[in-house]
């Protein structure tokens, strides 16, 4: 993959993000933040592939720990919040 392909993907994804996220109502802005926060834990994929040698392996391990905390904690806490939002009976 060359740099232009990467940048193309990046820019198009930003536009998709802006289109979708501007439609999220203020009521859900906190879950949006914690949920998107969990998505940014996607670095976990990079963390799993990282690491060569002792130092690289250590960095990779720490990256996996932080990213997994981010991912699991983020999705769980978002779920906990969203489960509280109820319509009037």
């Amino acid at each position, binding site marked *: 993959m*060359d*740099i232009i392909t*990467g940048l193309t*993907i990046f*820019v198009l*994804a*930003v536009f998709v*993000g802006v289109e*979708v*996220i*501007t*439609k*999220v*109502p*203020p009521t*859900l*802005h*906190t879950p*949006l*933040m*914690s*949920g*998107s*926060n969990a*998505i*940014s*834990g*996607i*670095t*976990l*994929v*990079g963390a*799993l*592939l*990282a*690491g060569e040698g002792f*130092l*690289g392996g250590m*960095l*990779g391990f*720490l*990256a*996996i*720990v*932080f*990213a*997994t*905390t*981010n*991912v*699991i*904690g983020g*999705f769980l*806490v978002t779920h*906990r*919040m*969203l489960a*509280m939002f109820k*319509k*009037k009976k």
Partner: protein
Amino acid sequence: MFDILLKQFVMAEQGLEKPVAKAAEKVAEVASLSEFSNLGYLVASVLFIMGIKGLTHPRTAVRGNLLGAAGMLIAVLVTLVGGQVSWPVAIAGIAVGTAAGTWFANTVQMTQMPQLVALFNGFGGIASVLVAGAEVLRSAPTSGNIAVAGLAAGLAGLIGSVTFTGSLVAAGKLQELSQFKKPFSLPGHQIINAVLIAVTLILCLNMMDGSAWEYFLLTTIALVLGVFLVTPIGGADMPVVIALLNSYSGLAASAAGFVINNNVLIVAGALVGASGIILTNIMCKAMNRSLLNVLFAKFEPSADGPSDDEVYAGKIKSTSPEEVAMLLDGVQRVVVVPGYGLAVAQAQHIVREMATLLESEGVTVEYAIHPVAGRMPGHMNVLLAEADVPYDQLKEMDEINPTFSQCDAAIVIGANDVVNPVANTDPSSPIAGMPILNVGDARTVIVVKRSLSPGFAGIPNPLFAADNCLMLFGDAKQVLMELVAALKDR
């Protein structure tokens, strides 16, 4: 083919004596696996977008979050199967992270949500730093283009490090730890920060030739920079700061994606980057301040302007819970205006009890939510949802403002600056132009507040002295409990 040649060239350049044929074989094997992986990453990216789309309505939000989680699971599984993963390291790391994440998510109180999001932003940031760091240490880079990978690693290190320490400081401020309580800055901190930013950017550009020591110097400086950038910012501006750091954590992930040539990191990072920027913008608008003003200017409570005495003297009418209960007899529509003071007093549940009582008498009860009512975007909505307030009763500022004139009683609880009419009337006031809730238009305004002390802006609030305003002094929870008791006795 060109790719393979390039990789061999890179290896040769670095003096690696691997048999050429073996290396080529390996590259071919990785290529077929990576096609499978990339397909999985595409599915994950689509699920992330659909997940965020689900968050556009409370009805679909739970499913949206699950879609996002499913996308993440697919991305991880594809990586575990298709990539060259060290299994013991992966299992150990995922086990520790899962335990920590579950603990955080299950023990956090809803009032502490801003701190937790800040902390998680920081974790995402440091993970990107570590991934880029491990990649820099690699003898044969994953990415074909060394200059691009180096620059991206530099950016991931810079943004990720600033996000990490900046988020930790923000979380400390939100948790009100004494060490972080006061905005602190070194003399001439603007200049120091400018120099540090310049140095890190130069090091970033230097990274294009792909050397490792520059990366570690760069991240060290950036870690310090993150602290320096956030410490001078006051606690009340933290909603903006965490929204911005949310965006940074996404950008750092994107940059890490460029380092290791991975599409799903680029896409997911871009989505989060966009989300954070949009929320930052919304928060700034709600305070009528520019982002630069929030980040770099000290918010000075104004010294001039009318004093408390001039505004309040002889005009404050104090009331009692019993009087309020009588006043609420026979009303048609009540609007509750919650501020963060309500959450501090833990009065959400008693407010809902009051609302249920009124509703049982046929009164319409709604809640007017100012965008900066809580400590992060949408925070007040979560706090009220926790107290079982139905989300269709929570009204945004723009929706409810025109209707205050048809409201019999507005009950302001623990809010001050967001209902200060001075924002509309006095162009010299520090909150001039800030959008406010026009509670003064209601027939009667009842303000539940401990004292007449000013809010964050440090200015008196003429609303409290208005003819149609009654002050109900005391702790929000205590006072509302008395009010509920009085309503029951009525």
